C-alpha cells in the first residue's frame, strides 16, 4: 500500500520531465546516414508496406557503416516481352540495379517493372510524373502470389485434417475440426440458410465457406509481422467480388431478371426508368464488395502503421509509449475488423445469391 502511494509523485515528476523534452525540434530532424527526415522515411515505409513486391523481404536494416541489408529471398520474375523472360528478382538488387535479360534492360520504378534502353537507362517521366517507358506484360510470382499459394496450402491442410477427423472418428470432430466445426455450422445456420433459403443453400455453401475462411485467414496474416497482406491489394478483392458477381449472374432465375428489367407491380413508365438503375445496381453491388474489403483493410493498416511511426517521430518516452499503447489497442481492434470484414463479405454474397434464386409465389 505504501509503495503504491509513493509511486504517484515519482510518476508526476517523470511526466513533467518528459514535457521538457518536448521543447526539442522534432521536425526536420535528419537521419545521419540517409539525409532523409524521419517523417519522410516513415511515409515511405508505409507506402512500401502497402505495395506488392517482387522479392519476399521480411525486413531491412542499415548497418552502422550505412550499408543496407535485406533479409528475405528473391522470387521469380516472369515477363512477356517479345518472348518469355524468366529471371530472379535478385537481379534488381532491391530496385537499385538494372536487370539485363537477353539484351533487354528492365528497371524497377515504384515497385513496377519498366523497360529501359541501356544499363544506365533512366525512367523518363511526363509532366504528370507518369513514366512513359514501356511496361512488359507481367506474370511474375510476386509476394502476393506466393501468399495466395501459401493460403491455398494452409487451407487445404486445415480442411483435409478436418475431413480426415470425421472419417476416423465418426461424427465427433477432432483436433482442427473441433475449432472449425462451430464456424462452419455458424455460416450454414446463420448466414446461408436465412439468406438463401433451405432449398438452394447447399449449392453455395462451398463458395461461402471458402471465401469466409480465405478472407479471414488472409486478414489475420496481414496483421502478423511477416507483413504480407493480400486484401489490401485491390486486384485480389476484385477477383473475389468478380466470383460473387459471376455466381449471382449465372444462378439468377426468371424472377431475378424480371425484377431487374420489368419490375412487377409498378406502372410502365416507372418500369422503363427502373430497368437501367436496377441493371447498374447489379454491377455496383460487387463493386462495393470489392471497395469495402480493400478500403477497410488498407485504412486499418495505414492508421496502425502511422501510429507505430509516431514512436519514432515523437522521440520522447511518454509520447512513444503512448503511441505504442494505442497501436496495441488498435491491433486488437484490427483483429475484430479482420473477422468482421470476412463475415460481411460472406453475408452480402449470400444475400446476393439469395436474391438470385428467390422464388416469388405471392405475385
Amino acid at each position: 500500500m505504501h509503495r503504491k502511494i509513493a509511486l504517484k509523485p515519482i510518476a508526476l515528476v517523470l511526466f513533467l520531465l518528459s514535457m521538457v523534452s518536448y521543447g526539442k525540434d522534432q521536425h526536420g530532424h535528419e537521419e545521419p546516414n540517409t539525409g532523409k527526415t524521419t517523417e519522410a522515411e516513415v511515409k515511405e515505409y508505409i507506402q512500401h508496406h502497402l505495395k506488392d513486391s517482387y522479392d519476399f523481404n521480411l525486413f531491412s536494416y542499415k548497418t552502422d557503416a550505412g550499408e543496407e541489408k535485406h533479409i528475405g529471398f528473391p522470387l521469380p520474375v516472369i515477363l512477356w516481352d517479345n518472348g518469355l523472360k524468366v529471371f530472379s528478382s535478385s537481379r534488381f538488387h532491391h530496385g537499385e540495379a538494372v536487370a539485363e535479360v537477353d539484351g533487354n534492360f528492365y528497371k524497377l520504378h515504384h515497385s513496377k517493372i519498366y523497360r529501359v534502353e541501356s544499363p544506365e537507362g533512366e525512367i523518363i517521366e511526363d509532366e504528370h510524373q507518369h513514366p512513359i517507358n514501356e511496361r512488359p506484360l507481367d506474370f511474375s510470382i510476386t509476394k502476393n502470389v506466393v501468399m495466395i499459394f501459401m493460403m491455398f496450402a494452409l487451407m487445404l491442410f486445415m480442411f483435409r485434417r478436418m475431413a480426415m477427423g470425421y472419417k476416423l472418428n465418426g461424427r465427433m470432430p477432432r483436433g482442427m475440426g473441433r475449432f472449425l466445426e462451430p464456424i462452419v455450422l455458424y455460416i450454414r445456420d446463420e448466414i446461408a440458410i436465412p439468406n438463401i433459403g433451405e432449398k438452394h443453400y447447399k449449392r453455395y455453401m462451398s463458395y461461402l465457406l471458402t471465401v469466409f475462411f480465405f478472407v479471414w485467414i488472409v486478414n489475420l496474416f496481414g496483421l502478423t509481422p511477416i507483413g504480407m497482406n493480400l486484401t489490401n491489394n485491390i486486384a485480389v478483392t476484385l477477383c473475389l467480388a468478380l466470383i460473387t458477381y459471376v455466381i449471382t449472374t449465372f444462378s439468377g432465375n426468371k424472377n431475378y431478371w424480371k425484377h431487374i428489367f420489368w419490375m412487377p407491380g409498378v406502372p410502365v413508365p416507372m418500369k422503363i426508368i427502373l430497368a437501367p438503375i436496377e441493371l447498374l445496381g447489379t454491377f455496383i453491388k460487387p463493386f462495393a464488395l470489392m471497395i469495402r474489403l480493400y478500403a477497410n483493410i488498407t485504412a486499418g493498416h495505414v492508421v496502425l502503421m502511422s501510429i507505430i511511426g509516431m514512436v519514432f517521430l515523437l522521440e520522447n518516452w511518454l509520447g512513444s509509449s503512448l503511441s505504442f499503447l494505442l497501436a496495441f489497442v488498435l491491433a486488437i481492434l484490427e483483429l475484430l475488423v479482420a473477422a468482421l470484414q470476412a463475415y460481411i463479405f460472406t453475408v452480402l454474397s449470400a444475400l446476393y445469391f439469395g436474391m438470385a434464386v428467390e422464388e416469388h409465389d405471392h405475385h
Partner: protein
Amino acid sequence: MEIPAIVGAGLVVIGAGIGIGRIGGSAMEAIARQPEATGKIQTAMLIAAALIEGIGFAALFAV
C-alpha cells in the same frame, strides 16, 4: 487532390458517420426493447452499416 474534392469527401464521411450512428443507436433501442432478438438485430445492423461504409469509402477513393 484539390480542396473542393477534399471538402466533398469530408461531407460524405460526416453523412456516413451520422448514418452508422443512427443505425447503431436504433439497434441499441431495439435490443433494449426485445433482448431475445439480439442476434438478428446485430446481423441486420452490421449489414446496413457495411452498406453505408461502402458509400463512404467510394467517396474517399473518388478524391
